[in-house]
């Protein structure tokens, strides 16, 4: 550690002397982020409080109360919650199975590699895959029909539950990727200590395992929630992306092309609502990660 502190002091001297020049090194990064992310986002946030004559107004925000928009937000929130919980539970159990569940090591590696791919396999190709699987002509639909179970019209891939099944496909791998290291961070000594005091498997999980893992599990589920809430392409392909689009992201996307809309400020307010919800998600996630870091260093 000694050389390190030495460097640090030398550095701070340098920093004080050529302070302004040092900042120049990170200027390209900040300029880029400012031009393509911060400035546009901030201007959208600011504009959602301005009317067309650039006067302060709350009208755009109040317009979010329109039943059509509220139902869209509710739909998105429900979809995100269902897929975060469903994907979180399935993914969590899978992560448990391949880590401390004691399955053969090659299976663990295979699931982790596959998850790396599957979590990036979203958007249009994923929609295509599920149309080929559970669509009206889908392979699984046909197979079920051949054994006497007809999914349609009771079920539709393009309905809420259909969309949920598709979303969960990319939620599970994300949960596995984040939770597997957390499960592996559980020390065997904790379990041994509990067992030597007479704890059963139930006791161990109820009083030790779950309380330690809970912040991490909840935090990851919050992340999954945001992941689903911001998703656009998959829903666009499945629902057609028409004006009946019931997911918020599709509504926002539709605002870009339709200049004919009565109030262009509405699009800004829609985007603002989305940023606020995503911001809350990331904030919650960070807070829960910090809680879990007390026990798990993974």
């Amino acid at each position, binding site marked *: 550690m000694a050389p390190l502190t030495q460097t640090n002091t030398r550095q701070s001297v340098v920093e004080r002397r050529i302070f302004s020049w*040092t900042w120049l090194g990170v200027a390209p990064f900040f300029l880029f982020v400012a031009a393509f992310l911060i400035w546009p986002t901030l201007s959208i946030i600011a504009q959602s409080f301005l009317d067309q004559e650039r006067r302060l107004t709350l009208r755009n925000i109040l317009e979010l109360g329109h039943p059509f928009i509220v139902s869209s937000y509710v739909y998105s929130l429900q979809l995100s919650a269902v897929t975060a919980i469903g994907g979180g539970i399935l993914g969590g159990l899978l992560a448990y199975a391949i880590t401390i569940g004691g399955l053969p090591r090659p299976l663990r590696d295979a699931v982790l590699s596959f998850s790396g791919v599957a979590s990036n396999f979203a958007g249009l190709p994923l929609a295509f895959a599920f149309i080929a699987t559970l669509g009206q002509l889908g392979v699984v639909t046909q197979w079920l029909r051949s054994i006497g179970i007809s999914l349609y019209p009771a079920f539709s891939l393009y309905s809420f539950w259909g969309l949920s099944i598709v979303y969960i*496909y990319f939620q599970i791998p994300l949960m596995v990727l984040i939770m597997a290291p957390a499960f592996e961070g559980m020390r065997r000594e904790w379990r041994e200590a509990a067992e030597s005091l007479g704890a059963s498997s139930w006791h161990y999980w109820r009083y030790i395992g779950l309380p330690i893992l809970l912040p991490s599990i909840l935090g990851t589920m919050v992340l999954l929630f945001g992941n689903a809430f911001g998703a656009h392409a998959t829903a666009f392909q499945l629902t057609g992306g028409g004006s009946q689009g019931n997911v918020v992201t599709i509504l926002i996307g539709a605002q870009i092309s339709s200049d004919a809309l009565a109030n262009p400020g509405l699009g800004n307010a829609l985007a603002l609502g989305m940023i606020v919800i995503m911001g809350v998600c990331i904030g919650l996630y960070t807070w829960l990660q910090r809680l879990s870091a007390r026990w798990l260093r993974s």
Partner: protein
Amino acid sequence: MLKRFWPWFWFIIGATYFLVPLYATFDFSLRARRGELSFAAYANVLNDIKFVESFWFSFQTALATIVISALVIVPTAYWVQLRMPRLRPVIEFFTLLPFVVPAVVLVFSLARTYNRTPLTDSREGLWVLLVGSYVILSFPYMYRAVDTGLRAINIHDLTEAAQSLGAGWFTILARVIFPNVYTALLSGAFITFAIVMGEFTIAALLAQPAFGPYMNRLASSKVYEPSALAIISFALTWAAIAAMQWIGRGAQARIAGPR
């Protein structure tokens, strides 16, 4: 035996969820000709000039994204580690912002903010916006990869050694730092490649002739070809991620942003 029951049970459930759609898609993609299994759908897709064009367009866009992202991230990560270590959380915060601002909000903001400027009035301008947004999306992966790569080498000693031999900052970056983070850079590059090739939202809303919008258009007129595209896409993603995992052996798998 009973003790291992539940882990196996959950593994089989998970594996079924993962593999059945893939199998079904593959099966479906072989049925383009009535009554026989064939690769006709693949042949149709690969022979489609629009497929080749849009694929090539996205390929070039991905390369441009990777080069620009590397040119911004490597000097930044290097400089932050060398001179401004306290700035690292700030940079990390900014690179993680794309998770707070989803792709659709990002492209909406860009389109609105730069409305009626050369950036939205011309084809080239829109392409600049496209690459710019992709570079932003690539930052979380690139920064983390490069930052980890830089931590593995002693940049303070390397810098001093280079300076004592008379090298300027440009030489240090180009001939000492870049070669040393090359593998880390590649692993970030592959995931960026996978993301850009499959991206739909930004490309479609900026009206770009990219691979994503092509897939969307194809799906409205064809039945079997989209599933062939899904398989091709999956293979491509697999190849990119496998290359990334092979290069960064032991490095943790990356997290995808929402798309």
